[in-house]
């Protein structure tokens, strides 16, 4: 039902590096869980709408104003920083 290649692909999509052993375990676990979920196929859902919101489906508006946060504390959370800025690896790599 779900192949090891599928798991590999999902790991890439979800940005999680998986070891080969874990791919095998996940394949087994997912097959089990998806097997259980199969029972939803028995339900007659014809004409039933999707419940897409937990509460009423209406837009909630508020003023577009900046909120004060503790920027010192925020910056202290940066895993890497340079001159007070958050430092990350480049999105594009140089040759």
């Amino acid at each position: 039902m779900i192949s090891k290649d599928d798991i590999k692909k999902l790991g890439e999509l979800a940005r999680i590096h998986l070891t080969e052993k874990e791919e095998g375990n996940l394949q087994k676990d997912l097959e089990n869980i998806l097997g259980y979920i199969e029972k939803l196929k028995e339900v007659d859902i014809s004409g039933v709408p999707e419940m897409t919101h937990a509460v009423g489906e209406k837009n909630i508006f508020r003023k577009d104003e900046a909120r004060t946060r503790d920027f010192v504390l925020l910056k202290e959370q940066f895993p890497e920083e340079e001159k007070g800025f958050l430092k990350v690896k480049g999105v594009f790599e140089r040759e």
Partner: protein
Amino acid sequence: MTNYSNLTIKSVRELFTNGELSARELVAHYQEEIKKKDPELNAYREVFDDAFKAAEEADKKIKEGETPRALEGIPFAIKDNILIKGKMAGASSKILEGYTASYDATVIEKLREEGAIFLGRTNMDEFAMGSSTENSAYGATKNPYDVSRVPGGSSGGSAVAVAGDMALAALGSDTGGSIRQPAAFCGVVGLKPTYGAVSRSGLIAMASSLDQVGPITKSVEDAEIIFDVIRGRDDLDSTSLEAKLPSGRSASKTIGVPREYFSLKEMGKEGLEEGIAKKFQESIEFFKAKGFEIKEVSLPSVDYALAAYYIVMPAEVSANLSRFDGIRYGSRAEGKNLLEVYAKTREKGFGPEARRRVILGAYVLSAGYYDAYYARAQKVRYMIRKDFENEFKNVDLLLTPTTPHPAFKIGEKVSDPLSMYLEDIYTVPINLAGVPAISVPFGTIEKEGKNLPVGIQLIAPWHEERRLFEAGKILEEK
């Protein structure tokens, strides 16, 4: 001599104003209990060193004759996924190691405004994913009634803090049963409010359409007092609502017992355990004797609730957990390029259950599978909500056991994810429908020479928490 284990918010308030107890004495008592018991129970991830100072301030106010606020000097334990400004918060995950919250969750702000004191943050299943607190990256929490058993989860640390007399009250979060199931396993009260009744701002999100913050307490009245403090509409959570005034009858008269709860059997695995069934029957008789009319009702779609939940929830998890990538906060793993930094950070940072649900969520949302899984689950969710709507036209409340069996052994289910998922079979439908429910302790049953608590669940229509408190208070008289 104060009998600490029987204290409630109301009795503490009286003792404070009579000068028979001070907030400092109370905080010192809990800190002492934590020191004694917690090396074994592991309910707390961190005990804050400024609780005593906050207690001094509360005492000063009371001494100066200021009218004590609703929670003046009341010591709380807070689940590790609720942000307290300046304190570490980690959702018991390695990926947030070293993270300090830069703001207060709205619920924390509200508790603070009413004078609450924060004793520490409590252990949980990583990102609230689990039903035993064994999925914490920092070791399992143990059940004070039998340390070879789990306290339930994911708010296991908060339930044990209250049950083990290491806090007067606690906050937890409930996505599929994470407040009610540990409350049931630990013999305390746990409330899952109506979806939207309490702001989720500052709660580390697991599945946003299901998550709610709620209290874990020693009495129903305490749960009510805390709920009244934390509820209300909040600009920072667009799904939060100002509760409408209770509608219809003020006092509940009819209680429905859904027949499906007796026949729920999953993949040949155990349904309702005999001991719990007996206690449940007892609770029905008790309500009858108190003048309630008991009606058999039917929620035909709840048979499919858990299956729908295990599509909706991981789908939301995979989206919510994408923010943990080592870029802005938490731990970051080294890699030769950006993509590798993400993948390595998430490999090292997430435990097995978090990874499993992220991958499962990515699968059910991926192209070609959406209609077969996610869309179908959302339709079934609609049907479940309708079931509750229909039956609440006939009855004021619903009554069920909180769990199919009492606390299980540590290690018993950890290697079989599906059997762990089935733990939440009685609590999950409530989150899918968005209605409020409370678990109230109802005696114990004996197992291997130990007395294990049993929880009874009361369910009310949307925003009718008052009905839960009224009936809950009657139930706890027993």
